[in-house]
């Protein structure tokens, strides 16, 4: 463990990211909402804190090792999650507590989108933009952004990159140089955001709303500038635009990259994960829409279709926008949707959950076990597309799956111990661990009503979910800290 090197990089990253407090200040100035002081204060606090961390060790320039990478990433997400709550706390809106401010900030940066603030519509513009911006930064990954803008991270950048990138196979680079890969990812991300923003704007949102929502849509976050989320706009066009961009953002960005480079859509068609992703969402949509029709939840068929589709995509990709009160939908639908959020987005996307590719591998592995019962001597490869996956990857996926469920089970128990009922506890864990956002029961609308210990547990769940569990878990193993 090279603690001084880690401290240096951490200080540097915190200094760089203090600049993310500048756009809200600018927004505050434009809208004259009189709420910029908390941001100015928070800006200087983080900048100076970063500088104080960096200054004593600025000479320690060494390559990051594998272990250092884990620590830097976890520390950075934690520190940024906590300091991100600073301007929210300082703003003093609705007498917000420290716990709530940090919960809101971590929920933002992990792109969960669970909120504890009720009365969002009345917040100052600067704070509204800040919440959305947190989601946007967390979506593609703050480390990926850091690697793109700080070339001096060099090879060490790869160690960081890996600890943050979602998906089972982390060694695939779009371009040979890590900085170029990170840049390519952010360009695609930026492009999607701009396109989304324009589409919302043209569909009738105000520019501020369009920008804010494009941030949280492309990041698969789910924060909105209104209590009623996307439902506020009461526009089918906007719902439809949201569906398209949520779908696009839930796809592996490497596919977008290949498609743009080759100027053809072939890469999507050939990708097994992408096809499974669409298949799962289509099947669930059909079931949902059918059941909504059967139970006459909505007055017209058209409404069932658009509301069903929107909610399936929003929850299936782990975005968490709402237009209807899905948590009060009839029968098994709310729980089905939560289950779908466990599958989540594709690897290398901004979505949360277990990731489609892992689920696909688990299913194929299950099928292989069945085949082995019939043909005990058969050599069967688990293939994704036409490529056989190595046993190492499959083992890692099983390990991930087991850890994911062990942790959710443990957290549900802990939440119930703090006094939450079973439905609320289960859905809150699912919503946070999958970086989804809205849950069921007491956390259907927002997370304001649950107790403080439960919020801290859920903060941990959100970080675990965003960093795909192992990056965080590895830090509590004794082996990690041994020299």
């Amino acid at each position, binding site marked *: 463990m090279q603690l001084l090197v880690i401290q240096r990089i951490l200080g540097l990253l915190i200094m760089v990211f203090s600049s993310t407090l500048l756009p809200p200040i600018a927004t505050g100035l434009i809208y004259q909402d009189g709420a910029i002081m908390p941001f100015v204060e928070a800006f200087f606090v983080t900048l100076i804190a970063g500088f104080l961390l960096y200054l004593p060790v600025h000479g320690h320039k060494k390559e990051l090792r594998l272990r250092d990478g884990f620590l830097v990433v976890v520390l950075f997400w934690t520190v940024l999650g906590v300091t991100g709550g600073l301007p929210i706390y300082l703003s003093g809106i609705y007498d917000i507590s420290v716990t709530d401010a940090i919960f809101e900030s971590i929920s933002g940066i992990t792109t969960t989108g669970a909120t504890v603030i009720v009365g969002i519509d009345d917040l100052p513009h600067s704070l509204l933009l800040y919440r959305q911006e947190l989601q946007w930064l967390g979506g593609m990954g703050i480390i990926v952004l850091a690697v793109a803008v700080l070339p001096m991270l060099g090879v060490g950048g790869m160690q960081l990159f890996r600890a943050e990138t979602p998906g089972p196979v982390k060694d695939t680079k779009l371009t040979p*140089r*890590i900085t170029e890969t990170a840049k390519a990812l952010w360009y695609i991300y930026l492009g999607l955001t701009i396109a989304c923003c324009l589409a919302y704007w043209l569909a009738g949102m105000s520019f501020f709303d369009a920008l804010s929502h494009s941030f949280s849509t492309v990041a698969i976050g789910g924060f909105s500038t209104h209590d009623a989320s996307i439902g506020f706009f009461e526009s089918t066009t906007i719902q439809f635009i949201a569906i398209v961009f949520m779908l696009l953002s839930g796809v592996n960005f490497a596919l977008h990259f290949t498609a743009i480079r080759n100027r053809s859509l072939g890469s999507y068609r050939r990708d097994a994960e992408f096809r499974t992703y669409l298949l799962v969402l289509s099947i669930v949509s059909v079931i949902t829409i059918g059941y909504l029709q059967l139970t006459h939840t909505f007055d017209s068929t058209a409404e069932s279709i658009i509301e069903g589709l929107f909610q399936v995509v929003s929850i299936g990709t782990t975005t968490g926008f709402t237009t209807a009160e899905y948590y009060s939908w009839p029968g098994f639908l709310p729980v089905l949707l939560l289950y779908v959020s466990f599958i989540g987005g594709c690897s290398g996307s901004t979505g949360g959950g277990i990731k489609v590719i892992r689920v696909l591998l688990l299913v194929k592995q299950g099928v292989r076990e069945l085949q082995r019962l019939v043909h005990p001597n058969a050599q069967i490869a688990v293939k994704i597309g036409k490529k056989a996956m*190595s046993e190492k990857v499959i083992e890692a996926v099983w390990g991930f799956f087991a850890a994911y469920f062990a942790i959710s089970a443990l957290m549900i128990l802990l939440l119930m111990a703090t006094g939450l009922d079973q439905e609320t506890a289960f859905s809150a864990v699912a919503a946070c661990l999958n970086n989804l956002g809205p849950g069921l029961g007491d956390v259907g609308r927002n997370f304001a009503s649950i107790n403080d210990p439960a919020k801290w547990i859920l903060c941990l769940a959100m970080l675990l979910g965003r960093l795909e569990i192992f990056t965080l878990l590895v830090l509590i193993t004794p082996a990690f800290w041994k020299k």
Partner: protein
Amino acid sequence: MNIIILGAGQVGSTVATELSREESNELTVIDINQQILSDLQDRLDLRTICGNGSYPGLLDDAGADDADMIIALTNSDEINMIACQVASSLFHTPTKIARIRSPEYLRRPGLFAEDSIPVDYIISPESLVTEYIYHLIEHPSALQVLDFADGRAQLVAVKAFHDGLMVGRALRTMSEVVPGVDMRVAAIFREGESILPSADCVIEDGDEVFLFAAREHIPTVISEMRKLEKPNKRIMLAGGGNIGGQLAAMMEKDFQVKVIEAYPARARELAATLDSTIVLLGDAANPDLLLEENIESMDVFCALTNDDEANILSSMLAKRMGAKKVMSLINRAAYVDLVESGLIDIAISPHQVTIGALLAHIRRGDVVAVHALRRGSAEAIEAIAHGDRGSSRVVGRAIEDIKLPDGARISVIVRGEKVLMAHHDTVIESEDHVILFLTNKKKIAAVEKLFQVGITYF
């Protein structure tokens, strides 16, 4: 530059390490062993792809369409050639370099051409290493002998010894000590540190001195630093692989050569192809065999197997049993430092030998050779000057007027058959081979740039 490297073996990894240091290079490494690739990716900022590098689909994945260069360095000559063919036919890759080991392919020069097998540069590590060792055996007192301008000028590294003519004297007196021999001291290393060879610099016992001279003057030059050793006569090679076999074939006319080979089939093959060499079947680390074959009267014992540890141990054994000088082929850089402190006289690092030749092709400007000295702490570069005073930054100028990067010195100029030592007023002409000595590796790019010809030349 966008470069694809095939094969992540010893040569491939070294090349990748070397090239990835330069910011402007984008590297993609292809190999069939995922484990090696993962290790490489952990260490270096490059992309890796697992698979057979000569397959068109895989080359496509590696971005062969945009690649500026493909370097095929796998163990198989055939894969390397096919990969170059595929890159040329399907992807129009501008520069193709292939490692060709087997001398059989190298005998017919017409084979590698644009319309047959499109390989622009052939690199043969075994031949390079063989040649390198041959030079060392030829000049018994030298630590390193490097060729420039097709061998017309040479660079020798000599360890100064108190019986040398120049030892204890300042460099300025050199022309008085040996009149008529033109040479140039390029660098002096004292206890591992580089010293600037100024005119007042006094050579001490134990210094490692790098000297440039015309080929015919090399023995005289060496004698200035130490009393010339008796010419080598009896040579024993441990390991009759590619290098051992080629070396034996080269030397058997002038030396008495014995080769020890452990595999019966290879030993039979060697015996069939070599004439006066004695091929011995057995283990080079077997003291009885060494004793039997008069190890104590051997001038040089050379361990040339693939196995670093076996080479080191058999060399140590030979040294203890009385071989006058032992050399060992050592692949791992860490071992080289370890053993050169005394156990083994000369450690030969095949990578250092190969990489120089390879890097020369990658350099821009007309750079013909880049040799790493003292395991990369300094480099000797040979570049050809083109153009005229208007288009080139070196031609038509006296050496003192050329803006050289820090730590670079022009040492020698080879003009046609003549080898000239550079003086401050020597004027460089077009087509001169200029040999520079560089103590700071980072400045290579600046040297390349110096020798690039302006657009007006074409």
